[in-house]
């Protein structure tokens, strides 16, 4: 026993000494300059960038070091970026969070005229980013839709719309999304309302619809739905038949299971955009902007899109992307299928509370 303890102590001591010498321990200071280098702190999603991209940037810009960390959700990223004394410079939030951060004056203006690669995203932003059409605060990095992935051997209907999720026939085989906006959004569209509805009656009707639907639902999940769908098999009784899913997840899931198809229902769906932004509090804005511009370069955008499986906003990047991925409908849907798609708007606290109340009803049922 003593032996073990002394071994552990020795290891700990060594580590103590090493830690105090390690550069990692003091990192995070935006302006910490070692040899004239400037550090840009970049808060990304996990596994959302091709691992070769940052080294490439640092090679081309030897005066900048990118310190990348990762956040699990928009909400956690927001808390981290908004609390006093934050050292984060660049973030990658989704459109509804960008709107909130714009409202709260948290984002710095980008100088698009000096960004060489702005031209490649311009068209996409003007068509799809009503909240910031001229990329004043945000540069679209990836986008995708929120649709239905289903097993073609179990679900044989010709036309797949949201109502399939409410069909008694598939009792115990339906997978819903475990998040307030996404699930209630589906119900709102099914009822013919906007997924940004601010109307109390509409929201509570959507809640009731989900309560009625609950007995049919096998599970509410998020990324774990990928696992359940990739093992979906008509031969197994009560196997999951369909799930609501983000397109990027669908791309991967379909690679595992060739019985799966992805569809964006004609009634409309959510379209999301993740975009790079610089925080107003950053004191390395010039370097941060250089980094964002680099990320917009078509060959870099292509690398990231291929790696993450999420669609790129740049048509110019498509030529660098593998043909097989381009043919995946979830990755590269027909433009006309997007006509009815809406992005999420940031909702006020009061409206959000209506959503919460409706969702609690579903979870209590």
């Amino acid at each position, binding site marked *: *026993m*003593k*032996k*073990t*303890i002394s071994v*552990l*102590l020795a290891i*700990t001591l060594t*580590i*103590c000494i*090493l*830690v105090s010498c*390690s550069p*990692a*321990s*003091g*990192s*995070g*200071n935006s302006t910490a300059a070692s040899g004239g280098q400037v550090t840009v*702190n970049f*808060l990304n*999603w*996990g*596994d*959302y960038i091709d*691992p070769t991209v*940052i*080294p490439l940037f640092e090679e081309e810009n030897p005066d900048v070091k990118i*310190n*990348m*960390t*990762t*956040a*699990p*959700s928009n909400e*956690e*990223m927001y*808390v*981290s*970026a908004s*609390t*006093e*004394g*934050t*050292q*984060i410079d660049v973030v990658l939030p989704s459109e509804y969070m960008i709107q909130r951060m714009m409202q709260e004056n948290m984002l710095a203006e980008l100088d698009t005229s000096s960004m060489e690669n702005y031209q490649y995203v311009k068209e996409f932003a003007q068509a799809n980013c009503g909240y910031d059409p001229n990329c004043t605060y945000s540069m679209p990095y990836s986008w995708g839709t929120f649709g239905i992935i289903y097993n073609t051997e179990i679900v044989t209907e010709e036309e797949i719309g949201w109502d399939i999720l409410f069909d008694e026939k598939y009792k115990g085989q339906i997978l819903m999304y475990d998040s307030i906006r996404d699930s209630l959004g589906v119900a709102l569209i099914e009822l013919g309302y906007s997924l940004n509805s601010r109307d109390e009656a509409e929201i509570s009707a959507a809640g009731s619809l989900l309560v009625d639907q609950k007995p049919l639902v096998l599970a509410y999940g998020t*990324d774990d739905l*990928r*696992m*359940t769908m*990739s*093992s979906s098999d008509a031969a197994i009784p009560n196997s999951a038949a369909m799930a609501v899913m983000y397109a990027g*997840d669908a791309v*991967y*899931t379909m*690679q*595992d*299971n060739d019985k799966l198809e992805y569809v964006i229902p004609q009634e409309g769906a959510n379209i999301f955009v993740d975009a790079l932004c610089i925080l107003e509090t950053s004191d390395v804005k010039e370097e941060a902007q250089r980094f964002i511009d680099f990320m917009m370069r078509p060959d870099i955008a292509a690398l990231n899109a291929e790696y*993450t*499986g999420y669609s790129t906003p740049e048509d110019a990047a498509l030529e660098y992307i593998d043909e097989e991925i381009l043919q995946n409908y979830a990755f590269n849907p027909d433009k006309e299928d997007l006509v009815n798609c809406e992005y999420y708007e940031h909702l006020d606290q009061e409206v959000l509370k209506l959503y919460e109340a409706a969702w609690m009803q579903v979870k209590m049922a």
Partner: protein
Amino acid sequence: MARFFKQFYLAIILIFMYLPIGALILFSFNESKSMATWTGFSTHWYEQLFHDPIIAEALWVTISVALLSALIATVIGTFAVIGMDSLRKKTKGVVLNLTYVPMVNADIVMGISLLLLFIFLNIPRGYWTMLLAHITFNIPYVIFSVLPKMRQMDRSTYEAALDMGAKPSEAVRKVVFPQIMPGIVTGFILAFTMSFDDFMISFFTTQGTTQNLSIYIYSMARVGINPMINALSAIMFVVVIVLLIVVNVRSTKKPKRTLQREY
């Protein structure tokens, strides 16, 4: 027969503990990114692991924070238990109730309240604030591991040592420590484990400037966890098992007499 039954019971529980580890290692060799279906053998997750710029640093942060925080928590916690022993029951009850707080508080509440504290104290967030936070939630595990050993201890031996002229610190070192050692070791190991696996508190107390493995893994959930993490776990597992075997072989080789004296 009874002996067989006992061994069997232990084996079943151990299999229960290791079943998912087996699956985890198996899927580190899966070609697909998913853990649901086996699509073919591949080592490319291992290759990717060695090219990931974040993993090495995150692993480093994780191990060093776990060791340091467990060590410091063990020292503070053990001395706390000894020091609290003679408190009146009521006072002790209050201290223990406060000790429960980090255990029962939701991680998010701990994380955000510590973040606010660090902002208030004007401490820049990063590695060291994460360490402080980890020590905080580790101490209760040490205290509740050492506490039962302390209750069970034979007080008369300590008293005898004092009567014979030993100073309290000397008596504690020579008489108390050996008796509560199993509790201290348990506490250290549990603290290390808690720290190793923490995500939410680490995330908020570093405020996005340093990160450990858990933060990296949880933040992958949005796009799906990359199996290179499975590969990393497999490697870590093998390393620890090998270390365990080496230490064990070395200590059994030693002559019996010295071994007995150690205990």
